[in-house]
């Protein structure tokens, strides 16, 4: 029983800030200190990440968004009542009464009631098809209504409104409108010019933006059919999401006689105490320093301040920085400090590139010494450094324009701009603002406690666990601290090998090692892991090109390589036979169809011009391949870190524009490099003319026909950070082109870090493209002959891995799910029907 006084704490509200308060209080609880913590939540589910709510439409589940599972509360002795909002506070008796009639006494009451959507007083907001965007329940309603809607609008062009617009796009609404009352989008964060750039970016993605529109009425009988604006214009829509701002949930406080602000919100002092000293308010329901802080980071700070006070320590809530950086429908938008500073005390520098959709503005003090604030749209790479420079009042360099011109509109020229890098920041610089973690704390954890990885620091400090925006800076701090300690920072493989991949490759080669065991014995320690095993497997394959499943090498391969197929959701595998250059005969097409039918496989044309067969049980793989091989197919290595496809356009054999036979060249290139293992996958393309239908410039190496020969491009990449390939050689003949590719690929294979695509490798290569040209074209290192020979060895030793497995009973035996019942398939594998085929059952 609780005999201590002042130990009963009740929290009203189980949102992000209410949860964070519980987490912090539990973490700070000292030995012997015993609280009873009771939490009332209005929603049916435990606190979840509302900041990333729109990720729900992009495939995240409610469970993914949950901050802590329901049993976390019980395990920490917290009594949690969900779907049971508090309805009354009796301040005299110090009791809270809930909707279900529970009466709970408190010594301290924490109001974390948050905010609701602000719905402007427009006629017709109650009609069917009008929604707000606030909770997972709102999202469920929107999702089910959107199925029958074709045109949708969002009322409000602020941060939340644009998130909601993205949600409508994700839901497949054909026509999505954003209606904003102000003269620009995101009026609180960015200026007219920045907003203009953002608007163009959003329009190019299919959003229609209406500015300076005052909505007068929502039209329709019972169901919305359109919006009527004050200027007389109209817009027909089937659904409307209102996202016009937030309204603090202060009604409970108000009815209990606690002071509230005339415009809404519970008034608190610097200690977050309300007019009743036993009652605190935190998060979006509180008015602190005359404002409502509608961001999560200040809310978390409030939770910290109150938790500390309840522990008997003293801490004030100081005016909080409202700088933000976010990605809106793929466009970076950031503002920091005073983004709108103007006048005689301020000089403003603006960089604008309409073609690339980039806008950057920095406001600098009149004496040129301090950064006052700024705005970044389209490229916010420098946000963290600028924010720190601004917050810490770091003295600026003589040419402050370097701050934003360092990387001119996304050309990857390196982020080594501004003021002396991360290590020049003062110790109290706030690096992770979600969790209020300073540079000093991180440096201490790295240097004193040996937490030298992001994962370790996440566990030790919680940095990077909120919005994740500080992760790049935390990485830089790790490197910085280690450099300061005199440790030469090398990207060593993992705890088992103190070598970089390049060093280990040389050692393996010089010593002629061919198994993982011997490499580990001679150059490593411990038992290896899932990082170094596939890295060494790749090195062995790149050097000797022996079958990857022999001599104990099967168990060092990633699952895909181990079973020569791609593991898919549910545990089945996909099968991709090679179709060089995308050219295939009708007979072979028929065989693929027959095999797919026989083994019940889902078929799809891939992005690389071949056919993927999904849903194969592991034990069926050898039989499937036996049939495919008999029909003349061979492995497509879709499972390997190796050459995938060489995509081609139809070229001069059929196309009236083609200037060279791109298909024949693509087949020749694909046959040459098939099966070559490398640090990461390699893709290629060959186009028959400058129209570039094979998209060769987005490939690791791409070839484009010219009137005089071929242009060779290298270092292109699709993926999350697309990058165009750069021209390596122009108008060369086929033989020269192949020689240059040999050298380029082998140089990459020998020097890149594990799992590094050619684009990233080239970006990091000192001297960049100029140096690569010097090595590949001018042979400044004198290694061109060796590189060509090493590649030729790989080409000459190619064998189809699947043919070898099919013909080898020992290898074939490994393709079973149960070793003791080889004929039985995994009974947990399940499929759902989808458009006359099947799909993997969704994650449970």
């Amino acid at each position, binding site marked *: 029983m609780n005999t201590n006084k002042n130990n009963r704490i009740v929290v009203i509200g189980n949102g992000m800030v209410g949860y964070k308060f519980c987490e912090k209080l539990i973490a700070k609880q000292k030995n012997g200190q015993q609280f009873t913590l009771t939490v009332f939540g209005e929603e049916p589910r435990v606190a979840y990440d509302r900041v990333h709510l729109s990720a729900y439409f992009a495939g995240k589940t409610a469970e993914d968004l949950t901050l802590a599972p329901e049993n976390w509360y019980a395990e920490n002795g917290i009594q949690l009542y969900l779907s049971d909002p508090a309805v009354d506070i009796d301040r005299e008796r110090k009791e809270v009464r809930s909707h279900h009639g529970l009466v709970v006494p408190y010594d301290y009451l924490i109001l974390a009631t948050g905010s609701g959507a602000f719905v402007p007083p427009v006629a017709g907001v109650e009609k069917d098809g009008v929604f707000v965007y606030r909770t997972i329940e709102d999202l469920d309603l929107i999702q089910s209504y959107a199925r029958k809607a074709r045109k949708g609008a969002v009322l409000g062009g602020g941060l939340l409104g644009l998130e909601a617009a993205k949600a409508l796009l994700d839901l497949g609404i054909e026509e999505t409108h954003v209606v904003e009352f102000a003269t620009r989008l995101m009026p609180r964060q960015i200026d007219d010019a920045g907003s203009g750039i953002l608007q163009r970016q959003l329009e190019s993605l299919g959003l229609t933006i209406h500015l300076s529109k005052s909505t007068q009425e929502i039209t329709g009988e019972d169901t919305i059919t359109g919006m009527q604006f004050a200027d007389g214009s109209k817009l027909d829509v089937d659904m409307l999401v209102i996202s016009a701002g937030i309204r603090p949930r202060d009604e409970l406080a108000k009815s209990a006689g606690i002071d509230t602000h005339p415009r809404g919100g519970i008034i608190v002092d610097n200690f977050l105490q309300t007019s009743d000293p036993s009652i605190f308010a935190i998060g979006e329901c509180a008015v602190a320093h005359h404002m409502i802080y509608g961001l999560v980071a200040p809310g978390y700070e409030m939770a910290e301040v109150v938790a500390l006070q309840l522990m008997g320590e003293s801490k004030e809530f100081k005016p909080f920085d409202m700088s933000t950086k976010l990605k809106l429908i793929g466009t970076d938008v950031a503002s920091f400090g005073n983004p709108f500073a103007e006048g005689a005390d301020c000089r403003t520098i603006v960089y604008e590139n309409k073609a690339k959709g980039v806008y950057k503005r920095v406001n600098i003090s009149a004496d040129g010494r301090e950064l006052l604030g700024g705005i970044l749209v389209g490229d916010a790479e420098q946000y963290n450094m600028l924010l720190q420079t601004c917050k810490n009042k770091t003295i600026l360099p003589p040419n402050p324009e370097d701050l934003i011109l360092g990387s001119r509109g996304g050309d990857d020229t390196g982020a080594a701009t501004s003021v002396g890098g991360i290590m020049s920041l003062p110790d109290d610089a706030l690096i992770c603002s979600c969790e209020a973690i300073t540079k000093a704390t991180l440096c201490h954890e790295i240097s004193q406690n040996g937490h030298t990885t992001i994962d370790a620091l996440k566990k030790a400090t919680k940095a990077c666990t909120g919005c994740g925006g500080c992760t790049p800076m935390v990485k830089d701090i790790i490197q910085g601290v280690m450099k300061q300690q005199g440790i030469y920072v090398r990207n060593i493989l993992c705890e*088992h090998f103190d070598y970089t991949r390049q060093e280990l490759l040389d050692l393996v080669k010089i010593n002629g090692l061919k198994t993982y065991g011997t490499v580990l014995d001679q150059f490593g320690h411990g038992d290896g892991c899932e990082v170094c095993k596939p890295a060494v497997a790749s090195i062995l394959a790149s050097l000797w090109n022996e079958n990857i499943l022999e001599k104990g090498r099967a168990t060092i391969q990633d699952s895909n390589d181990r079973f020569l197929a791609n593991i898919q959701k549910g545990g089945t595998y996909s099968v991709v036979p090679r179709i060089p250059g995308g050219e295939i005969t009708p007979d072979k097409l028929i065989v693929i169809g027959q095999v797919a039918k026989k083994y019940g496989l889902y078929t799809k044309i891939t992005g690389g011009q071949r056919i993927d067969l999904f849903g194969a049980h592991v034990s069926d793989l050898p039989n499937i391949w036996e049939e495919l091989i008999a029909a003349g197919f061979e492995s497509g290595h879709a499972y390997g870190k190796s050459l995938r496809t060489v995509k081609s356009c139809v070229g001069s054999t059929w196309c009236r524009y083609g200037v060279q036979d791109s298909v024949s060249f693509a087949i020749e290139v694909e046959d040459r490099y098939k099966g070559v293992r490398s640090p990461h996958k390699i893709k290629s393309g060959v186009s028959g003319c400058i129209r570039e239908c094979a998209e060769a410039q987005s490939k690791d190496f791409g070839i484009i026909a010219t009137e005089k020969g071929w242009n060779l491009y290298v270092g292109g990449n699709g993926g999350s950070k697309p990058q165009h390939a750069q021209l390596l050689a122009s108008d060369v003949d086929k033989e020269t082109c192949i020689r240059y590719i040999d050298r380029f690929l082998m140089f990459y294979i020998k020097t890149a870090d594990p799992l590094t695509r050619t684009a990233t490798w080239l970006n990091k290569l000192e001297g960049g493209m100029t140096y690569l040209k010097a090595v590949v074209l001018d042979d400044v290192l004198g290694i061109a002959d060796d590189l060509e020979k090493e590649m030729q060895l790989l080409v000459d030793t190619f064998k189809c891995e699947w043919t070898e497995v099919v013909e080898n009973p020992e290898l074939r035996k490994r393709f079973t799910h149960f070793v003791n019942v080889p004929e039985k398939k995994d009974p947990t594998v399940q499929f759902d029907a989808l458009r006359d085929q099947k799909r993997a059952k969704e994650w449970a």
Partner: protein
Amino acid sequence: MEVLVAPKHEITWHLACRVDDIPEDGGACALIEGKQIAIYNFTRRGKWYATDNECPHRQQMALSRGMIGSQSDEPKVACPFHKKTFSLQTGQCLNDDSYQINTYSVKIKDGKVYIGI
């Protein structure tokens, strides 16, 4: 080889497979009493381990296809799906505290592998 993990309570030994059914320094799955058990032949240490075959993160029957190795000195297996790693001794997930798998005793006799459940 003798019993490697001391049984906590009364356990029954089940014949799972032959020693050479499990690849060296790797794993494979056996069906025992309707349960999918992943068995690992940790040749480098001369030890055997057994765990659930199901990775609790996404309920995938895949741990037997994972790579084994060590973290500091702890023997572990990495799920091939999203690389959650689990201690082969305790079953604790090493990179996410919220997951845990069951571990089982293994006995080797006359070239055969027995699992204690």
